[in-house]
C-alpha cells in the first residue's frame, strides 16, 4: 500500500493488551495454566515473549501440528476463561491511555481497536476503560483467519473503516504488531508499556513509553 511520506497520521490502528490495559502478564499466566490443563508444562515466563500473537499463532510454538489442528480452539477457549477469571484481580488500565484515545478522537483522528484478543476480552476491557462509543470501530481474533503477526487484523480494519486515505499508523506494544504493520506498509509506533525488551521493538518507526506519551510527545505526528 503506497502512502505519501511526511504527512501526518489521521487514523490509528490501536492494540489493546499492553497498550491500553496492563494485561500481558495475566495473559501469559492464563496461557500457562491453560496449557497445564492439556498436560503441557510451560511456565508463564516461557509464554510471555509470545504474548501479542493471536492465540492460534502463539500455540504453534508449544504444540505439535496435529494437536494444533484439533485442540487449538479448545485451548484458546480455556485460556480466555482463565484470563477472564483473573481480569478484575490483575488487569489495570494504563494511566492516561484512555484519556489519550479520547483526545485523539476529539482531534478528529479515527481510532480503530485492532486487537488479536477475543471479543469477550475486548468487551470487558473497553468497559474498564470507559471507551464505549469513543472508538470508530474494532476488530477481534474472530474476524480473521490469521491473527498477528500476520497483517490480517490491520488490513481488515483499514478496509472496513476506509482508513487508507487518512494515512493510518499502528500503535502496538509487541514485535508482532510491528511486523504486522510493516507487512502492509503501515508505520508502527511501539509502546514500551507492554514490557517487551527494547531490542525487540527496534524496527518500529517511533518508540514511546506508552499511549499517553505517544499522544503528548508525538502530537506533532498526528493530523
Amino acid at each position, binding site marked *: 500500500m503506497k502512502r505519501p511520506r511526511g504527512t501526518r497520521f489521521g487514523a490509528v490502528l490501536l492494540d489493546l493488551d499492553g497498550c491500553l490495559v496492563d494485561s500481558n502478564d495475566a495473559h501469559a499466566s492464563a496461557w500457562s495454566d491453560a496449557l497445564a490443563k492439556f*498436560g503441557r*508444562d510451560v511456565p508463564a515466563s*516461557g509464554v510471555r515473549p509470545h504474548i501479542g500473537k493471536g492465540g492460534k499463532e502463539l500455540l504453534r510454538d508449544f504444540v505439535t501440528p496435529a*494437536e494444533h*489442528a*484439533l485442540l487449538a*480452539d*479448545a485451548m484458546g477457549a*480455556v485460556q480466555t476463561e482463565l484470563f477472564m477469571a483473573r481480569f478484575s484481580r490483575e488487569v489495570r488500565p494504563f494511566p492516561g491511555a484512555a484519556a489519550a484515545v479520547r483526545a485523539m478522537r476529539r482531534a478528529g483522528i479515527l481510532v480503530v481497536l485492532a486487537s488479536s484478543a477475543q471479543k469477550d476480552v475486548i468487551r470487558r476491557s473497553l468497559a474498564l476503560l470507559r471507551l464505549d462509543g469513543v472508538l470508530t470501530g474494532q476488530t477481534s481474533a474472530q474476524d480473521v483467519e490469521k491473527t498477528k503477526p500476520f497483517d490480517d487484523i490491520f488490513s481488515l480494519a483499514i478496509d472496513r473503516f476506509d482508513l487508507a486515505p487518512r494515512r493510518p499508523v499502528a500503535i502496538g506494544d509487541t514485535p508482532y504488531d510491528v511486523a504486522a504493520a510493516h507487512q502492509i506498509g503501515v508505520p508502527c509506533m511501539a509502546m514500551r508499556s507492554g514490557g517487551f525488551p527494547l531490542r525487540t521493538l527496534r524496527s518500529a518507526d517511533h518508540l514511546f513509553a506508552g499511549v499517553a506519551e505517544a499522544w503528548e510527545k508525538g502530537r506533532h505526528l498526528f493530523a
Partner: protein
Amino acid sequence: MKKNPTALAFHGLTIRSPDPEALAGKCQALLGWQVLVRGRGRIVLGDGPELFLEIRRGRRGEPEGVQQIHLAVKHLERGRRAASRDDLGGDSWSRPLTPALGLTLRQFRRAPSPQWRKKRKRV
C-alpha cells in the same frame, strides 16, 4: 443444501480384543505410546485425546477388530444430534455404522479430564 459437521481428522480407534494387555504391549512396542488410561478390560494408549488407541476386552468368541472410529470435527451441531460432554474434553455423539462398528464424532471444546492429560515436553 444439507450441512454436515466438518471433518478434521480421525483421531482415535477403539479395538476389541480377547487379550487387551497383550495387544497393548505389542502396540506400545511398535509405536512407543504410553498408557493414558487403564481400567477394567480397557487400556488407552496415546498422546492424549487428540490421538489415541483404545483397546477393550471383547466378548468371549468375538474376533479382534475395530469397534469404534473417532472422528474430530468442527460444527458438530450441524449433525443435529444431541451431543454430550465426554472425558476427552469434547462434545460428542456416536452412531452405529454396522452392528459391530460405530462412529463417534467429537468436537474438542475444553480441557480433558485429568486421566487424559499426559505430561509432555514442550515442542
